[in-house]
């Protein structure tokens, strides 16, 4: 290591960073406690449950909502409530206020039983049943899908498999091309990453293993977070979002083993989706057959799903009605950041409202 870098860090530590860090780490449990009281609090009813997963139907904030329902599909790696972080910083609540009828798939916490669940079953089986439950609950023939991160990939694959079910598709930072310079593409290369050995030995990938890998991407960012907390620890509005995000960042869920195996080998290592070789069951997935209205949203500072790997969906699909938005933010900022709140959410809500039936010119009252 560069000695100047090391000495510079030591000087900062002695100059006050130590006290900042100690206050931040001492506040950890209290922050998580505050976060638990704020995250995922938008009122909802469970309309479907399967294994550890459940589907939430958020209570409309305007009556009647647009007829076509929206299903939000989060990543299986993190908790769904990033899209409903706090009452003030909730994508779900924002969409509800614009008259969108919002449903959320909460994957729940994987148990040893889920170690055997396959990606094929998750998409063509469980997701299909979830969409069926929403169709029955809403009385609508088709559902709009909004997938975030891994959920974006799943929504795109589902749209190719079952086009009749999908009214519109939103891919929010879901990688489609996996051979890029993103850190997870580098880490999972077959030269040094043995997914079989990991799954065969551990079953589900433990949450603490996943959490450690997330923090290893940029461990020094924790120091900036500590300083952010220390500077604004007396600002209640700031603390609410900070506490909920702190909880979310430290609340991963185990990754079901067989799903992890296929996700890494077929997508990260072999890049089958973009090559037209990815299969769900017997069916080959051709994203070129996706014709539903589609909105692709990528972020230039996204180090988890590099923007080009997300944006490629826009070029691949056959949809006549399609739009690409590239933001100047990061992977998480695009969902919870103040910029996202001010700029992206209104565009997203407007785009969805225009494709959700009813009067799209203004929110229903």
């Amino acid at each position, binding site marked *: 290591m560069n000695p100047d870098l090391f000495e510079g860090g030591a000087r900062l530590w002695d100059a006050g960073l130590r006290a900042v860090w100690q206050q931040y780490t001492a506040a950890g449990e209290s922050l998580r406690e505050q976060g638990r009281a704020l995250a995922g609090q938008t009122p909802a009813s469970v309309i479907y449950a399967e294994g550890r997963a459940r589907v939430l139907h958020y209570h409309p904030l305007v009556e009647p909502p647009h007829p076509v329902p929206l299903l939000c599909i989060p990543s299986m790696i993190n908790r769904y409530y990033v899209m409903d972080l706090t009452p003030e910083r909730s994508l779900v609540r924002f969409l509800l206020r614009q008259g969108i009828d919002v449903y959320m798939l909460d994957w729940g916490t994987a148990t040893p039983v889920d*170690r055997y669940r396959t990606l094929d079953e998750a998409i063509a089986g469980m997701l299909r049943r979830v969409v069926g439950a929403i169709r029955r609950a809403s009385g609508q023939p088709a559902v709009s899908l909004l997938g975030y991160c891994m959920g974006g990939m799943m929504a795109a694959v589902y749209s190719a498999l079952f086009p009749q079910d999908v009214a519109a598709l939103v891919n929010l930072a879901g990688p489609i091309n996996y051979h890029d310079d993103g850190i997870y593409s580098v880490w999972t290369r077959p030269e*040094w990453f*043995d997914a079989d050995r990991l799954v065969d030995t551990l079953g589900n990938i433990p949450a603490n293993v996943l959490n450690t890998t997330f923090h290893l991407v940029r461990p020094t960012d924790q120091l900036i977070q500590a300083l952010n907390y220390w500077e604004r620890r007396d600002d209640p509005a700031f603390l609410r979002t900070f506490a909920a995000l702190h909880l979310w960042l430290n609340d991963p869920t185990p990754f079901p083993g067989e799903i992890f195996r296929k996700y890494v080998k077929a997508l990260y290592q072999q890049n089958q989706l973009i090559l037209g070789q990815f299969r769900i069951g017997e069916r080959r997935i051709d994203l070129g057959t996706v014709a539903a209205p589609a909105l692709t949203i990528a972020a230039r500072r996204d180090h988890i799903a590099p923007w080009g790997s997300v944006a490629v969906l826009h070029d691949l699909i056959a949809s006549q009605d399609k739009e690409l938005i590239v933001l100047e933010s990061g992977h998480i900022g695009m969902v919870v950041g103040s910029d996202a709140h001010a700029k992206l959410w209104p565009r997203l809500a407007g785009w969805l409202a225009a494709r959700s039936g009813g009067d799209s010119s203004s929110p229903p009252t």
Partner: protein
Amino acid sequence: MNDPFAASLRASLEAWERQAAAYWDSLIRSPDVLRRVSRQANLTLDTYRRITQTLESAGLPGPAPQQDGARALYLLERIAHQLDDLAARIADLESRLDEP
């Protein structure tokens, strides 16, 4: 931010963090580092597997019996879902037959 100490600390920390993050990023992308980490991780996994096999062969509680039970539960859940899917299809067909 009015506190001069905090302002100075932030400026210094941000500058240092950018350098440290760039250094770290080059480190965690280095094929040599990744191969060494991979070797160590594989050794750890193999050791874990040998320990659990030893425990199980000695009749002590290990993950294998739990995994067998979990697999059976998974298969049962899967059969239940397949039956549900089948029932839904039959109901759909019946409703179509009932249509004039």
